[in-house]
């Protein structure tokens, strides 16, 4: 109801901005003011230690909660299609919901270890990043998208490099800085080309003004795709991910692997909303190649890793590939399966990072030996998450993957499905390997110091429970995710006409005469 009050009190210019964005912006301002007041207060800079952090965490949590509540506020009046900045549709609502929940989860992780006593600014940056992610997820206009993207990556830079005097973090930040700058410049150039071709700033794949020479439009699309793929860390634009996740503190790594990827994927889907991805059009071809590369490459990458953070990086690359398969198999199930998989992926990856956070500073696999004997709860939670990522029942990932396969099957994406199956078999190896390492008894019962913090415990428990429950009863979530997002080309009839070698499908079935 606070949300509605704010909506009433808004100047008309902001009327079409979705409520969560407004709530987040307001929350950020409040938090900024609070921090400023405390800093300039009588105590001086950071004299009182814990209180500030707690207050900041409370404010951030409240903001996230309000924003989440804001998702149910009446949709803002839509401006003309040309001019509007945000598309506050169901797709946005779903993506934003996921983002907010994930941010909440990340907020629940332990920040003290990463940020020392002064985590208040970290919370501020987290809110900022969330804001950027939501803007990205909801943007219908190039301007909004670019602004959101930059907010996201700048706050991420801050977060990665937050911890003082930690060379790894700084190196990660440096890499992210250079590469993110490059990629966003490429993306920006693509947007510019699109604008030059079409003359409007809508955030969609541009249609060539005259179909005779689509070169400019195509180039624009591809450059934008480069930017998006980079942020999604799809192969071959994935190389930064492992290093950055390795260097960044665990909550930040989770933020990168979950929140920003959700946002970017939502944006990617929206970018191609008007494009027919079932056919042999070029962006589809490009996406398919990238999907195959990501699935196989990511899993291979993780296969060779002994560092859990890097392993998770590889697995998240692979999952982006699966998501691309879902996106490419436009049809009755494409978008639904993608949305479902986003949720499963978010929960599992978040949980995995939370489990890592429960045993901090031990990202290498060897130190997790015998974890089932030393910290059974943590080991069990991590196993559930890995099972979900690997697609093993009864975790939700099983159904999610089956759902994607169903979508691809209904769209005759045979080649993609083959790659998916092969790569997920490779994936099984390393997920199972982690589980095995945790099961093998450790030579000496050297339990890592420090018990799990309450926030992480609650988060892990909730996530594991959700993963199992939704895995056993996926019905409601499937219901929720169907019909979120209607692509331009309903797959029913277009699915059949896929003749490109890349999508060589089963022959369209002919009803046979009765025997």
């Amino acid at each position: 109801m606070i949300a509605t009050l704010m909506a009433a009190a808004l100047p008309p210019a902001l009327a079409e901005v979705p409520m969560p964005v407004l709530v987040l912006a307001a929350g950020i301002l409040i938090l900024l003011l609070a921090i400023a007041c405390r800093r300039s207060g009588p105590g001086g800079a950071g004299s009182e230690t814990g209180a500030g952090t707690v207050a900041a965490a409370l404010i951030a949590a409240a903001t996230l909660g309000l924003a989440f509540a804001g998702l149910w506020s009446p949709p803002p009046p839509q401006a003309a299609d040309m001019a509007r900045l945000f598309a506050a549709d169901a797709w946005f609502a779903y993506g934003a919901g996921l983002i907010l929940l994930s941010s909440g989860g990340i907020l629940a992780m332990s920040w003290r270890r990463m940020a020392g006593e002064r985590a208040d600014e970290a919370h501020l940056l987290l809110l900022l990043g969330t804001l950027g992610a939501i803007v990205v997820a909801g943007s219908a206009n190039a301007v909004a998208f670019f602004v959101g993207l930059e907010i996201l990556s700048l706050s991420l830079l801050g977060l990665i490099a937050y911890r003082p005097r930690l060379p790894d973090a700084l190196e990660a930040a440096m890499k992210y800085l250079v590469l993110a700058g490059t990629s966003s410049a490429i993306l920006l150039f693509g947007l510019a080309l699109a604008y030059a071709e079409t003359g409007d700033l809508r955030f969609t794949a541009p249609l060539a003004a005259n179909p005779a020479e689509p070169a400019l439009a195509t180039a624009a699309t591809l450059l934008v795709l480069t930017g998006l793929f980079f942020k999604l860390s799809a192969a071959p634009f994935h190389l930064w991910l492992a290093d950055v996740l390795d260097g960044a503190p665990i909550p930040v790594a989770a933020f990168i692997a979950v929140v920003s990827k959700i946002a970017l994927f939502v944006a990617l889907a929206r970018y191609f909303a008007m494009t027919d991805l079932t056919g042999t059009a070029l962006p589809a071809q490009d996406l398919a190649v990238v999907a195959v590369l990501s699935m196989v490459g990511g899993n291979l990458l993780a296969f060779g890793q002994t560092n859990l953070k890097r392993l998770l990086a590889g697995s998240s690359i692979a999952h982006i590939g699966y998501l691309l398969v879902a996106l490419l198999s436009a049809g009755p199930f494409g978008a639904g399966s993608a949305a479902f998989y986003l949720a499963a992926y978010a929960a599992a990856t978040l949980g995995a990072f939370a489990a890592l956070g429960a045993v901090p500073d031990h990202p290498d696999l060897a130190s997790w030996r015998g974890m089932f004997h030393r910290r059974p709860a943590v080991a069990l939670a991590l196993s559930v998450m890995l099972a979900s990522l690997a697609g093993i029942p009864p975790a939700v990932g099983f159904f999610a993957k089956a759902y994607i396969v169903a979508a691809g099957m209904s769209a005759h994406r045979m080649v993609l499905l083959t790659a998916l199956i092969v790569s997920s078999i490779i994936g099984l190896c390393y997920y199972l390997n982690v589980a095995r390492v945790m099961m093998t008894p450790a030579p000496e019962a050297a339990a890592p110091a420090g018990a799990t913090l309450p926030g992480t415990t609650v988060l892990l428990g909730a996530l594991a429970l959700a993963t199992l429950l939704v895995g056993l009863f996926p019905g409601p979530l499937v219901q929720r995710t169907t019909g979120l997002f209607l692509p331009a080309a309903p797959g029913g009839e277009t699915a059949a006409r896929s003749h490109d070698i890349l999508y060589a499908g089963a022959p369209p079935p002919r009803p046979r005469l009765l025997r």
Partner: protein
Amino acid sequence: MLALLPPLIVLCPLAAATILLLSAGRMPPPAARVLAAGAVGLAAALTLWLAVLFLSAPPPTYRLDVVLWHWMRVGGFDARIAFTLDPLSLVMMLVVTGVGFLIHLYACGYMRGDPDVARFFACMTLFVAAMLVLVLSSDLLCLYIGWEGVGLCSYLLIGFWYAEAANGAAARKAFIVTRIGDAALLCGLLLLATRIGGLDIATLLQPGHLGGGPVAEAAAALLLGGALAKSAQVPFQVWLPDAMAGPTPVSALIHAATMVTAGVYLIARLHPLFLAAPTVMAATAVLGLVTLLLAAGSALAQTDIKRILAFSTISQLGYMFLALGTGAWGAAIFHLVTHAIFKALLFMAAGAVILRVHHQQDIFRMGGLGRAMPGVFAAFAAGAAALAGLPLVTAGFYSKEAILQQAWHAAPLLWAGALLGAFLTALYISRCLLIVFLGPVRTAPTGRTEASMAIPLAGLSVLALTGGLIEMPNAIAPVHLLFRLLAPVLGPPTAEDAEGGAGLLLAGALAPLAGIAVAWGLWRPRAGAIAPADDGLARGARAGWGFDAIYGLLLVRPFLALGWLNRRDLFDRVPDLLAAATRWGARLLGRMQDGRVRRYAGWIAAGTVAALCLAVRP
């Protein structure tokens, strides 16, 4: 009443076996002995009673069907556990239970002092039960139960003294070789079942049901394969000599009297089927003759007394197959009966000797035992005479005569071979007798043969001498008890002696005498050590003409060698290759992340450019 007896007779030994098995070695030996011998004796008594009942008031068709239960009935195929009592099975039952009982009695004495006599008698009684099932069952599949059951018991009993690895190997060999024949037999059953829809013997043998032609030939050939293996005929004869590793009563019961004759019984039982397959008949006769001669030759060169008897068993079974091949079903059964008697007698006498000379089996280490053990000597002599076919006074003479006559009518060449066989038989058994019982003493015997062993010897000696009188050639006296009895099953007795019966008779009578004479000339008792002949021929004969070596070289070795080569299972290499490939790819991708930001940017640029190139290509 009549219908109740056959299952009851089978049940007696079966119950004993079950009790002995379940006792798991806890039963004291005396109790085990009494239980086993008693059960088989009861079975024998019941069989006698059954015979009396059956013969006094025979059923109109001379057959009595006892259906116990349906075994499997699915998809148009119906197999029953059912017994048929008819003259043939009655004769077989008499042999099995009668000789079986005597041998059990004998074994009570022979196995005295053996720690786990219970296991021994469990297997023996189980064998009797299985053998009874074999001869009684009216359904070929049911018969197959007994067929395999006796094989199993033979395996268990050959390897009874498992401590020596050799015994186990012999047992395994026996089972495997016969199992090859069993597989052939099974294929025959499959063929018949596919053609007829069932395996009930009566329906199977209804004239015109199967018809002649290739199908009948094939079926008969497959069944013949089973029979050959079970009865140790060429080319499957290799297992029987090794089977002598078992205790002597086992050799007497299983490897002389009963089990090895199962093949003869099978063919006689299914003779209409074989009549429809002339080629197979001829093959049977020829194989029988070949076996007869080869085995007799080997027997002539053996030094181990039990191996002599083993080869002689093979050779005598050859006579039976010769008879079967020439269509003399009755003669074959006749010889089966007499052979069961005198061969069991010979084995038991040999066992008695072996016990007395501290398990010494080499005849060239024995000698002059006749004086020390006259009773055993007499028994052995009676058995030897019957085996040699001493004219008129022995059972073997009459049964062999019947076969020879039939052979002459079939083909004089077969007759000549058989006659030569008769000569050889007399030769080798006289050799054995002379060397073992006459001449100077080489190993001093100790102890005495106890009553439980002597009684069976005596009984069988009488039978061995007089048992032939139930069936005589017309030239001597027109007595045809056995053939008349068997007529309902095996058809009317074929006219043995149309013309020239007397001449044939004379020839058949002279051959053994000649053999004995020659043997006396060669091995008559003389002072000084005598050694077995050791030229190449003798060695070859002693080795059973090298069948073992050939099989080992051609079949067993290559099979096992290839197996050893492939022990690691070549298919198992494929997953390893895949794993290696995956690891290689992972290493490659790992090397891509060398931490240099410029390289990363380069990949981003490369990807973009590649996409653009992909775009401008079309």
